[in-house]
């Protein structure tokens, strides 16, 4: 392999490492630089709960049945 080709490969490798480090750092600090809105956070938590709930339903082979004695709550916003 020529020295020129080795330099090109080395440069690309270095570039890939730099890009990965920057991306990782950006991913790590993104939430603190751009925090999610309460609505986005609530939606995210709901998705997480939904995921867990669906897994539980499947694990227990459970079925939903309407419950008695409850009322809807009108709540604006997230928490």
């Amino acid at each position, binding site marked *: 392999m020529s020295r020129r080709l080795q330099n090109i490969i080395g440069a690309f490798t270095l570039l890939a490492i730099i890009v990965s480090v920057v991306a990782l750092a950006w991913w790590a600090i993104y939430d603190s630089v751009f925090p999610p809105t309460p*609505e986005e956070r*609530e939606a995210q*938590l*709901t998705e997480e*709960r*939904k995921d*867990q*709930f669906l897994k*539980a*339903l499947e*694990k*227990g*082979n*459970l*079925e*939903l*049945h*309407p*419950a*008695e*004695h*409850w*009322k*809807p*709550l*009108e*709540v*604006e*916003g*997230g928490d």
Partner: protein
Amino acid sequence: MATKQVQCLLCPRHCELREYERGDCRVRVNVGGELHTLVWAEACSANIDPMEKKPLFHFLPATWIFSIATAGCNLHCKFCQNWQLSQSNPEDTRNFRLVPADVVAEAKASGCGSVAYTYSEPVVFYEYVKDTARLARGEGLRNVLVTAAFIDEKPLRELCQFIDATNTDLKSIRNEYYQEICDGELPPVQRAIKTIQQEGVWQELTYLIIPTLNDTDEEFYDYFHWVLDELGPDIPLHLSRFYPTYKLSNLPPTPTSTLTRARNIALEVGHNYVYVGNMPGHPGESTYCPGCGATIIRRRGYNIGEVKLTAEGRCLFCGREIPGVWR
């Protein structure tokens, strides 16, 4: 953004639940802004028991009762004997589908005259109890609730329309005990016990006596006076022996002397029917006529010896009426 929250109104906790969140009981869940139960017809235990095991001593003695449970409970007692069921999520217990019609058919096929909702806490499988009890009554079966009575008044009154008898836990007469040992509150339980009485449901009380936690003379007097004042002298009281388990495995079993002392205090306060439980061979297992003192139902453990009662529930010796449901 409006969220789809709901509030459960079944028990005094009144859990407020966001979407896909479960109540404290582990079995009621908000899906799409509507509350659902996960345990309707999801039995995790079904057995044929003697009525005396519930315990009910003045309700169809020496008969068999078909007994079912699901996972979940709305209290978290540190001494729970059935914590593997009551403190588990329904997806973590071994369940079998048993719809109300199956329960009734199984009960009848096995020669049981009644169905018990028991072992864990029937309040949290409320809809299953109600649907099964309605069907069972239509088929000539009786319904028994074995409960800690941590339930709101409205659902309780509705349920009482289908219930023939309850064994209700009154675990202590101290609110601090309910808060610290059971993660609950005493006043709603007291209200529920009075409601059951008002609804004309046959009721017996169980007091699990635990060394160092609820076993002083002062507490015994307060407990028995409250029951006497609110419910009268004829409600059967079961003073039950504690065995170390779950989070209280460090405590010793209740000494016989403590149970005997508690029974003597209850009799001194004026109660007519005071029983000692979980202690086979204790004289406090049998029923004595308050009129003439004769032994009218002799028991040892779950076994019944002689029964000296008329078919109408009167003492064979003096004719005194003994309160209960005898046939």
